[in-house]
Structures are given as C-alpha cells and as structure tokens.
C-alpha cells in the first residue's frame, strides 16, 4: 500500500473512531471485572438495550441519541443495581473460593445474556433496525469526517477523561481504584464494600448502555449485536490489564489502530486472525495485560 495512503489523515481518522468505539464498549467492563473479578458476559446485552432505547426514541419521537444515551445509561445502571442486589451481593459475600466465584459468575451472566437476547427477539423481532442521523460530512484539511463518527470520537474522549478523573480525584473513584488494586487492604481500611461493588456495577452497566445508544447512530440495532460487543470488551480488558481502566482505554485505541492499519500490512482477510492471535498471545504470556508494566492509574 502506498506510503501516502498509509499516512493519510483519512485512515488515521478511521483508526481513531474505531478505537473510540472500542474504548466506549470496553470501559464499563473493567470496573466490574476489576473490582469483583466477575466475568460479565452480559456486557454486550446492556449495549443492545441502550441501542434499542435510542432507536425507538428516535424513530417514534425524534429524540437525538445524544440525549437518549443518558437515559440509556440510567436504565442499564438501574438494571445493574438490580442484578447486583438480587444475585451477586449474596454470591460475593459467601465464602466461595475465588476461582469458583469467577467460574460461577461467568455462567450466571451467560444465562442473563441468553435471557436478554431472546427476550429482545420476542419483543422486537430479529430484523435489524437503523436510522439516519447526523451523517453529513465535514471536510477538515482534506479529510472527510462523517458527523456522527466525529461525535462518537468526541464523546468517547470526554467520557474517557471523565472516568479517569473520577477514579483519580473523586472519593468514590479512589475507593474503587483501591478496591481494584488490593481488595483485602481496601476492606481493612474501612472501605464500604457493598457500596463500592454496587457503584461498580452501576457505572459498569450504565456505561455499556450509553455506548450502545451512541453507537446506534453508526451500526444496525439487532438483538444479536451484543455478542460481538462483549468479545471486544473482553479483548480490551485483557490487553489493557485487569482493572486497569486507563490501560483498557489505551488498549482500545491500539486495537482500533491495529485493525485499521493492520490491513495495510497484511491482507484484510488476515485481520481477525491477527487480532485473536494477539489476544491469545497476550493471555498466555502476560495475562496481566500489556499495560501492566509499572504504573497503574
């Protein structure tokens, strides 16, 4: 591929947007996974719920996804709270071995994901839906930017910054961070375990709903969309390091860049082999994630 194409702003913009999408999707998973080591396979389904909300609000009343994404976040956060209080509070408090807990949580979330996906099929039918919103082009310095893609990039950046600040400066954020770093120590320091866990659930689930609502501008909404989101989120969490929110964001961006530019060096059909190959290698050789060398946020 010609060098000028490789260095083109167009490709760079695309890579950034793809990365931003990944960051949005994976953000919340790190919180749940990091604080409680729970494998939330239903993460993608939260995004699906958010996406459907945004779609229907737009289709019926013309509500902009930028507005409905906040509503979506609230709805899925509430769902998260319900799931936590109903199921996981008890599970976490029991003195199960950590390995067992992780395994069991995986299966519970799997069950929840199956229920949600099929409920969606029953309610909405399996046909994909889409709408047209903000798809005019802006031209900046020779690069064409579709408005909705630009918005996604900007929102992802804002949210990324907000969450980073939250974890650094807010009292609850610091507590969550402490929890992620060393659960036992945090508990001994008097951190309110229940509150933190609930918060992690709410923020984690809520951010997925928000991501889904936002992404409904770019992608088709169907009951089956959740699964691929979940996979991406997990890949990101692994690459960035368990519980390392900032690392996860970096990983998301890198993943977007890898996907977009990787095509230039290998054939496009090799793309997924490349990504999963990296995923597997990271898990085998450095399960703590690529960003684990040294500082954590």
């Amino acid at each position: 591929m010609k060098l000028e194409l490789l260095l083109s702003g167009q490709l760079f913009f695309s890579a950034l947007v793809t990365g931003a999408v990944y960051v949005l999707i994976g953000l919340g998973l790190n919180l749940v996974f990091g604080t409680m080591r729970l494998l939330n396979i239903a993460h993608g389904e939260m995004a699906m719920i958010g996406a459907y909300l945004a779609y229907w609000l737009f289709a019926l009343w013309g509500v902009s996804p930028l507005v409905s994404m906040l509503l979506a976040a609230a709805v899925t956060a509430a769902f998260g709270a319900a799931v936590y209080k109903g199921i996981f509070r008890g599970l976490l408090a029991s003195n199960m071995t950590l390995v067992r807990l992780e395994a069991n949580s995986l299966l519970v979330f799997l069950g929840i994901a199956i229920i949600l996906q099929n409920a969606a099929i029953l309610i909405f039918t399996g046909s994909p839906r889409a709408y047209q919103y903000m798809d005019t082009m802006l031209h900046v310095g020779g690069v064409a930017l579709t408005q909705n893609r630009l918005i996604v990039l900007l929102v992802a950046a804002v949210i990324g910054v907000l969450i980073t600040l939250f974890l650094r400066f807010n009292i609850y954020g610091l507590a969550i961070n402490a929890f992620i770093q060393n659960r036992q120590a945090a508990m001994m320091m008097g951190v309110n375990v229940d509150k933190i866990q609930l918060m992690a659930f709410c923020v984690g689930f809520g951010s997925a709903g928000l991501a889904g609502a936002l992404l409904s501008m770019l992608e088709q909404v169907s009951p089956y969309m959740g699964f691929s989101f979940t996979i991406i989120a997990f890949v990101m969490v692994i690459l960035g390091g368990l519980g390392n929110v900032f690392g996860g964001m970096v990983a998301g961006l890198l993943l977007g860049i890898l996907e977009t530019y990787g095509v230039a060096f290998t054939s496009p059909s090799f793309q997924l082999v490349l990504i999963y190959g990296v995923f597997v290698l990271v898990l085998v050789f450095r399960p703590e994630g690529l960003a684990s060398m040294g500082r954590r946020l």
Partner: protein
Amino acid sequence: MGLVAALFAAMAFVPALGNEYLRSVALSLAMWIALTESWLLLSGLTGYLSLGHAVFYGIGAYVGVLLWGHVPLWLAVIIGGAVGGASALLVGFPVLRVRGPYFVMLTFGLAELVKYLVTWIEAGLGQYGRIVVGPPSLNTLFYFMLALAIAATCLTHVVSRSRVGYALRAIRENEEAAETAGVPVVYFKVFAFVASAIIPSMAGVVMMMRTTFFEPAAAFDPVVSFTIITMAMIGGRDNASGPLVGAIFLAIVSELLWANWPQVYMIVLGALLVSFVLFARDGLVGLLLQKRKASAT
C-alpha cells in the same frame, strides 16, 4: 452406574424401533453426552473451565470433510481424534499455565482464532464450503456416536475414580497446595486437556457426515461450547453421570419447547442456567444425591 448402563442399552435399541426421527434425536443425544463427558474430564475435575471446546469439534469436522472419500469412516474418526489430541498437546503447556477467568477467555479466544484461521485458509484455497457426497447411513453414524458416548462416559468415570482423578480434584481445590505436596500439576493438567480433546474431535468427524456441509463459522460455533457448559451445570459437573442427566433433561425440555417457541426455550435455558449455578451448584445429580442422603438418614 447401573442406570447409566441401562440408558446406553436402551439407546442401542432405538434403531430397531424404525422411527427415523427418534434415531436422529438419539444421535444428537449421544453427541452431547460424548462432548459433555469429555469436557467434564477437564473442566469438571480441574476447575479449569473451557469455553472453547467447540474448537476440537470443529477440528474433527474439518478433518472429516477433508478425508471423506479417501479413507473409510472409522479411519477418519481415528485420525480426527489424533489431530484433536495433538492440537491440544501442542498448545496445552502454555495454555494451562493460565488460570481462572484468564483461562476461560483464552479457551474462547483460541476457538475463535482457529475458526478464523480455517476461514482464512479456506478462502485462500478458493474454497467456499466443502460437501460430503454419499455419506454413511444414519444407523452407522448413530452407532459410531453411541460408541463415542460410551467411551467418553467410561473414560471420565474411570479417571474420576482413579488417583489421577483425585489429583485433578486436588488441583481444583487448591493448586498451590497440590504443587507443594509434590503433585506434578502441569503434566496432570495437560493430560486432562488432551484427553478431553480426543473424543470431541471424533464426534466432529461423525457429525460432519450428518451435516454434509462444512463451513467454518458453523463448525466452530461458540454456541456448542456454551451448550456443553449448560448441560454440565444442569446435570452436575463432578460426577460422570452428570452430563447424561444434563443432556437428557435438556433434550426433553427442548423437545417440548424449541420446536414451537424457540425464544422461550432459550429464555428457559438461560433461567435454568442461572438458577442451577446459584442454587444447585452440583446440578441435578447433586440434588438427587442430596435427596438420597437425606432419606437415608
């Protein structure tokens, strides 16, 4: 165990009934038993949950479709099993160093990686789906699969009761302690991994003759992995009779439901999964054993 033998004997008589539909149901049942029993050998005993067992099934299917027409069925089955086992051996050592949720994701990632590798290879070869022309009769396939189911059950049963089985369970309960106590943990884990790979690969070969159309996305379908885990959870994952109970139970539920209300079936499945993980961790077999204990006292 007597019940188990009776069950297999009953299944062996199904072809004599002459009802083709029942025969195909029995074939399906035998397949799930074979797959789940093999899975148990690894994940039930060692606690290393494999979420990618479909990879061995897919490998078997690929071997099957490539060899068909060139070698007789029994040879293809053996070669399929060998390839599956060899693959497990190849990646076993690095893969089994990874623990807990990382292992779960790794197995899933591996399955997807192999799927995309095969997709890439097939596309590169200009292939767009291979078919099996003139497959063996349903009866032949059924008996092969029944043999595999019996073999898998016996293998799991024998290993589970043997010293190897106790070592594997020790690994599940506390791997560090087992290691300190001098158990060659790595070799046992790899053994379980390889042993759990062979029969699913063979099952893949047999089922390929039934499907007659090889397509990577369908052969390496993650739903297979999820179904195996669900059956094991519902049936009971510490006992060789668990998968049998799980497979039959699901077969009955599915006969009643998926035929006409597929989404309801899936929702029930999800709900069952959640309930069993939360309330009946040792599955139906566990419940039955508890009842027997309670009535005995």
